[in-house]
C-alpha cells in the first residue's frame, strides 16, 4: 500500500516544526525528502512511522508490523554481532527462525556483509553499519520502508551498494521514503519533496521541480543582486522573481536541478518574509 501525509503539522516545545506538510509515497517507488538540518525531515519521518503524533493533519501508513524504519543513528546494537542484530529484529517481528535465516543470508550477501556476520556492530565502519541498519529495516519485508539519512558517513563505493538495495526494495513493491541533504542523491528518487523551515516548498519529479520555480534564472557575467545570486563552478547564476531579464534567462534544458531548488528556496523565503512583514 502507499503511505503519506496530508496537511500534517507538528508543534514541539511550543513552536511549530512542520506546517501543513503533504507527502505521497506510492508503493513500488522511492520518494526522497531533501532539506538541511532543522528543515523537519526527521520529524516528518517520525510521524510517518508512528513515533510522533501530529498536532493536525492525517498520516496514511500500513500496520506497524509492515513498517521498516532506519533512524539516522542506523539503529543497531553495538555490542551484538551483525547476525545477532538482524535475528533480534526478525524475532521482534515474529518471524520464524527458518525465515529469518533465509532472508538474513540473502540480504547480508547482497549488502556485501556476509564476511562480517560475526563482527560486533560497534566494530563496523560507518558504511557497513548503515548497510546493516538497512538490512535490519527490511528483514520482515515491510510495505513501507522509511530511511533517515541512510547515506550519511557512507563512501561512494558503499553508497552504490546501498542504493542498489534501496532500488531492490522499491522494485519488490515497498513504498520507500528516504531523507538526504544532498540533491545529487535525491535526484535518484522517483519523486522529491524539498522541505525548508518545516514546509514543503517544491515537490515532484526532477523535471517537474526544474519546470515549476517562479521567475527565471539568468547566467550574468557578474552578480547584480548578491542575495539572489550564487556560483556554479566558475559561472554565476541569478534568480529573478519576475520573468525574464535583460541578460536573458536560461531555458529549462540549461537549468541544473540544484539551481532550480535554490530558486525555489529563494522564492519561498521571499514569500515568507512578505507574510511576516504584513
Amino acid at each position, binding site marked *: 500500500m502507499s503511505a503519506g501525509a496530508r496537511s500534517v503539522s507538528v508543534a514541539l516545545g511550543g513552536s511549530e516544526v512542520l506546517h501543513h506538510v503533504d507527502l505521497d509515497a506510492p508503493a513500488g517507488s522511492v520518494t526522497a525528502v531533501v532539506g538541511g538540518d532543522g528543515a523537519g525531515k526527521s520529524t516528518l519521518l517520525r510521524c510517518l512511522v508512528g513515533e510522533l503524533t501530529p498536532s493536525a493533519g492525517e498520516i496514511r501508513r500500513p500496520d506497524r508490523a509492515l513498517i521498516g524504519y532506519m533512524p539516522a543513528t542506523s539503529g543497531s546494537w553495538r555490542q551484538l554481532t551483525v547476525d545477532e542484530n538482524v535475528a533480534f529484529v526478525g524475532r521482534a517481528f515474529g518471524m520464524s527462525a527458518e525465515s529469518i535465516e533465509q532472508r538474513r543470508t540473502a540480504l547480508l550477501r547482497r549488502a556485501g556483509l556476509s564476511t562480517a556476520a560475526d563482527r560486533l556492530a560497534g566494530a563496523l565502519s560507518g558504511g557497513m553499519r548503515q548497510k546493516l541498519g538497512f538490512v535490519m529495516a527490511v528483514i520482515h519485508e515491510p510495505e513501507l520502508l522509511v530511511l533517515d539519512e541512510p547515506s550519511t558517513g557512507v563512501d561512494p563505493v558503499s553508497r552504490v551498494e546501498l542504493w542498489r538495495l534501496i532500488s531492490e526494495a522499491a522494485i519488490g513493491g515497498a513504498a520507500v521514503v528516504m531523507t538526504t541533504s544532498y540533491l545529487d542523491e535525491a535526484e535518484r528518487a522517483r519523486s522529491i519533496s524539498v522541505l525548508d523551515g518545516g514546509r514543503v516548498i517544491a515537490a515532484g519529479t526532477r523535471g517537474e521541480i526544474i519546470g515549476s520555480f517562479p521567475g527565471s534564472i539568468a547566467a550574468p557575467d557578474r552578480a547584480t543582486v548578491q542575495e539572489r545570486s*550564487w556560483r556554479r563552478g566558475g559561472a554565476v547564476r541569478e534568480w529573478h522573481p519576475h520573468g525574464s531579464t535583460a541578460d536573458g534567462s536560461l531555458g529549462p534544458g540549461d537549468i541544473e536541478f540544484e539551481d532550480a531548488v535554490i530558486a525555489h528556496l529563494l522564492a519561498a523565503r521571499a514569500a515568507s518574509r512578505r507574510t511576516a512583514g504584513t
Partner: protein
Amino acid sequence: MRAQLTASGVTRRFGAVVAVDDVSLHLEPGEVVGLVGANGAGKTTLIKMLLGLLPVSDGIVAMFGATPSRSSRERLGYVPQGLGLYRDLTVAENVSFHAAAFGLDASAVDLNDDLTAMSDRLVGSIGLGRQRQLAFACALAHAPDLLVLDEPTSGVDPLARARLWDAIREQAGRGAGVLVTTHYMEEAQQCDRLVLMAAGRVAASGTAMEIVAGRTAVQVVTESWSEAFTTLGDDGFEVTLSGRQVRVPAADTDRVRQVLDGAGIDAELTVVPATLDEAMVAVSSTA
C-alpha cells in the same frame, strides 16, 4: 609561485599496514582541490601528515615550502567534520576563544546577521547548519593562506551550501589554497581539481572532466525497467537505477544486450558518458 602544500612520495606505515603509499600532490595559492576516495583510502592519514600532525614513514611534506610547524600552522584555517566548536559555550564565547587563540580581537570573526542574532545562545542549541557557518567564520578570522575543510557543506540546505561555496571561492580568490575532502559529487564538482585516493595511493587526478573522460556507462531504456534492473543485477552487473533509468557503468553493450535478450527484455541501449560518481567508483574498485 610557492605551493601551499606539497607531498612527494609520502608513505605512512602502521606496523604491517601501509595506510598511505607513495603519494605526491601539490596545492597552489588560489586553488580549490578536492581529496576524494572511499573510507579507509588514506585521506585522513594523508591530511594529518600534510599538516605535520603525524610523522611520515617515507617521503617529504611541505607547508608553504617548509616543514610543517606550529608557526606555519598559524597560517592554516581548519574546519574538521566535527566542527571543533565548544557546544556548552555560547556563540560569542566560542568566537572570543577562537580569536584569542590566534591573538585577534573577537571582531575579526565576521558573523552573518543570523549568527549575530544568536550570539548569546549555546552552540549546542543552535542548528547544525548554523554551527557549520560559525566554524567556518572562526576558521577564516585570521585570513589563513591555507584552508583545510572536511566535508564542508554536510547537513546544510542547497542555498546555504551555495553560500558556503561562494565563501570558499572568495577565499581562493584572495589567494588561499583550499583542500576539501568530500564523499559527495555535488561538492567534488565545485573543485578546480580532484585527487582520488584508493587503497592508500593516488588512483586518479585532474579536473572532474579529465577523470570522467573516456569512461562510459550503458543506459538501458525499456518499459520493463524493473525487470532489466533485477536481471542485470542478478547477472553480476554493477547496475544502478535513477527514477526509471537503468544504468550499467563501464559495461560492454553486447554483454548487456545478451543478458537482456536472454530474459526476453526488449530495450534500447545507448553508450553515454559516465557520471563523476560512476568514474570514482570504477577507479576505486580497480585500485
